[in-house]
């Protein structure tokens, strides 16, 4: 099976992706992660304004068969949470790098992103 691993993201070993747009870091889970979880039915996300630390569990994702924590790729302040997922958690399965995003962060230090896995490194991890 081949999983989508976009070139414009960085990755955590725990299968989160991070993408920087205009100084904001958007975070979600990878195509591989959504496939492993199966049908996502519930997502619990932090509030805007919450502080998250690097590799802290900031939320919970539940599929029909499993519960999984979601980890922050960098530390920062939450500036957005994808409220659409409350009613449409299946977006995580359908579009993990697009409409299925989880949170947006104002990073404490944007340079922390460089410590994350590159697309190539992440591909090696899951293959």
């Amino acid at each position, binding site marked *: 099976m081949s999983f989508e691993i976009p070139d414009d993201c960085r990755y955590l070993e725990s299968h989160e992706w991070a993408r920087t747009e205009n100084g904001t870091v958007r975070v979600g889970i990878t195509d591989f992660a959504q496939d492993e979880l*199966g049908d996502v039915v519930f997502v619990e996300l932090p509030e805007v304004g919450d502080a998250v630390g690097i590799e802290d569990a900031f939320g919970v994702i539940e599929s*029909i068969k499993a519960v999984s924590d979601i980890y922050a790729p960098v530390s920062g302040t939450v500036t957005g949470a994808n409220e659409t997922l409350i009613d449409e958690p299946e977006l995580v399965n359908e579009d993990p790098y697009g409409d299925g995003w989880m949170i947006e962060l104002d990073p404490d230090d944007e340079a922390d992103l460089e410590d994350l896995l590159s697309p190539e490194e992440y591909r090696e991890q899951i293959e």
Partner: protein
Amino acid sequence: MSLRTPPVPHDTKTTDFGGWEMPVEFDSIRTEHEAVRERVGKFDVSHMGEITVSGPDAERLLQRLTTSDVGALDPSESQYAAITDEHGIMLDDTIVYRLPADQDEAYLFIPNAGHDEEMYDRWVDHRDEWGLDATVTNRTEEYAMFAIQGPDSPDLLGAETNVDLSELSRMDVVSGTVAGTDSLVARTGYTGEQGFEVLVPWDEGGTVWDALDCQPCGLGARDTLRLEMGFLLSGQDFDPEEEPRNPFEAGIGFAVKLDTEFVGRAALAGVNVEGPEEKFVGVRLEERGVPRHGYEVQNTDGERIGHLTSGTMSPTLGEPIGLGYLPAEYAGEERSVRVLIRDEPKKAHTTAPRFLP
């Protein structure tokens, strides 16, 4: 210890279930679940045990080791039963088939995955202790077992078998062919839908599986389908070590025939008089969240009153549902409770274990 594998190689995600490496999902649990509720799906359940019992005392042996009335079975009939210890605690649940007269063996019963060796030993030990004349054979790895379930299952299976499925009543079992292979065809299942289970020789498993042209389903959908019906899962909703329960607590008193003689009967007669202190109930969450095995259930004052043994997001209802044990007064009517999810009490109410009409 290496996992036992079913006769058909499935190229999909698998899980260890009762010591067997079994498919957990083929497409998605939701897709598979919906196929069974609306059309038809097939399950490889070759991890279920098969033990045959024959000989002059076969009926007596089965009668004394299961809670149902084996003597009431005519050939080609089957019944659901619990297997209890002397305290009335459930060791497993099973279907006991009285096989059609054209079969070499008299009875076949189906222990759950991973229980076949334990149940074989139990049967043999009691046979010897009681001096009964019966031949007990563990045929778990001689039979592949497939379930074909859903409203379209008669058409789907009907096209592949010489059995007139319209003649088959619920719990009937007959001999016939499926995809040209000698089989046992039973109108049984674990989904709440119309459906069938077929037992075929292990080596013919692949031929039969491939001939059944419908949605393949894994253990994930099997679990959500049975959960919506409030059917017990052995080893999870009851377990002699982790969740010791008697059949009255577990809501299967209908499978206990106290006028027959069986191990556990005296204890269960007492429970029947006094009534169980706790009962198996359904719980519906009124807030967002997913109830799971092991979650604590509280009353509205925040006091612990029980726990869940199973739970999921119901694909059919689109709502979170759970099963578990609560004080008996919570069964039978809708009562407000709380389910503790990650230390947060979530509003919920009790229901019958069966969630679908």
